[in-house]
């Protein structure tokens, strides 16, 4: 180690990490979800690289390459199932982490930068889900992408432009597949790895936040090795859940996309896009003379902007006071999420 340190100064960050402590209190359990999100992200990278060895991103070969992975490549079905289920678990864990940070007001000063990087990561992870979904080029994937990339058209001033950029043209075709593949495999991973690294470094430097009014217990947990082993324990449980899903419910492949066929009955996006999907279904064609998609787009943009600004809007939390209004807003958000997903599946 001394040999390495003389040449790389590796002991400086290692010694810093050795001193890091994690606060103990009745809500400390929620801290584990951040590390769990990192774990599933790692699973996605490993399984994604493996799938990349056989996947071919053109409309003429994409479906067949996925079919080959599942039917002919040893353990190909398993790698694909791991990748697909892990994407769902990653999004679920990121949402749990997001809400836990929101309710525990961990976004308050001095952790605003952690909140900003975290919200950006949340949207990146959803972006991964959206871009990856088209890649098998089966019927569901094709039409889900057709719908998903149509929604931004009603954004004022730049809607048409956004649609063209996303699709690589007017319609979902070979250019769309190439573009979404590049996003999924290069652009989003580079952004995500950079932001995740920043997010983790900020956490190491600033430590974990203690909720307002909550009593800390002494002594705190040393990060190394005590909390790290707790992280490993959580990852083991997470891995077991993933294996259960991948082995008991292996992911199937639908029929190959036919752009000239009609959309199948009951087509729906993945569960994490159902709130947006169901909101669009709720809406009448026009609201106060305005196109309802335009209204939803504007609402989504306002909501997204508001989300980034939460640490700066919540003055109570910033000054170390309880903030019941934001807690109520958070509960309303969860309720809306659950309601819209349930309605989407039941109706």
């Amino acid at each position, binding site marked *: 180690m001394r040999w390495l340190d003389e040449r790389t100064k590796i002991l400086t960050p290692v010694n810093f990490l050795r001193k890091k402590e994690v606060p103990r209190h009745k809500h400390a359990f929620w801290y584990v979800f951040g590390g769990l999100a990192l774990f599933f992200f790692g699973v996605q990278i490993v399984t994604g690289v493996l799938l990349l060895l056989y996947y071919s991103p053109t409309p003429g070969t994409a479906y067949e390459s996925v*079919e080959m992975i599942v039917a002919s490549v040893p353990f190909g079905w398993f790698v694909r199932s791991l990748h697909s289920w892990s994407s769902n678990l990653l999004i679920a864990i990121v949402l749990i982490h997001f809400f836990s940070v929101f309710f525990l007001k961990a976004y308050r000063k001095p952790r605003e930068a952690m909140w900003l990087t975290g919200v950006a990561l949340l949207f990146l992870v959803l972006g991964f889900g959206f871009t990856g979904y088209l890649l098998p080029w089966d019927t569901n994937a094709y039409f889900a992408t057709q719908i998903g990339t149509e929604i931004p058209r009603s954004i004022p001033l730049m809607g048409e432009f956004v649609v063209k950029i996303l699709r690589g043209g007017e319609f979902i075709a070979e250019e769309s597949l190439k573009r979404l593949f590049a996003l999924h495999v290069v652009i989003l991973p580079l952004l995500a790895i950079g932001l995740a690294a920043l997010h983790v470094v900020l956490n190491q430097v600033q430590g974990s936040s203690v909720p307002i009014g909550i009593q800390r217990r002494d002594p705190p947990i040393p990060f190394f090795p005590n909390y790290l082993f707790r992280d490993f324990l959580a990852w083991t449980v997470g891995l077991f859940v993933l294996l259960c899903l991948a082995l008991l419910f*292996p992911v199937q492949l639908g029929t190959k996309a036919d752009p000239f066929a009609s959309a199948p009955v009951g087509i729906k996006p993945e569960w994490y896009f159902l709130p947006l999907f169901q909101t669009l279904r709720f809406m009448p064609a026009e609201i106060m003379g305005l196109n309802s998609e335009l209204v939803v787009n504007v609402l989504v943009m306002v909501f997204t902007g508001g989300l980034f600004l939460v640490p700066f809007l919540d003055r109570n939390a910033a000054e170390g006071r309880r903030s019941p209004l934001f807690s109520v807003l958070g509960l309303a958000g969860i309720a809306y999420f659950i309601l819209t997903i349930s309605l989407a599946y039941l109706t």
Partner: protein
Amino acid sequence: MVDSLKSTGDVLAGIPDAGTRTAALVICGFVMAVFVVLLYLRIKASDERAGL
């Protein structure tokens, strides 16, 4: 060239039967359980050292 109408069948041909997958899950479950026990013991040992 594979017929897309038969593709689901071909795909299923690559996926082992439910019995094999369940057996694999049982083995994985055992492996994870050993990990959990070892990690739990290790955490306890570290916590005692740290006075937790």
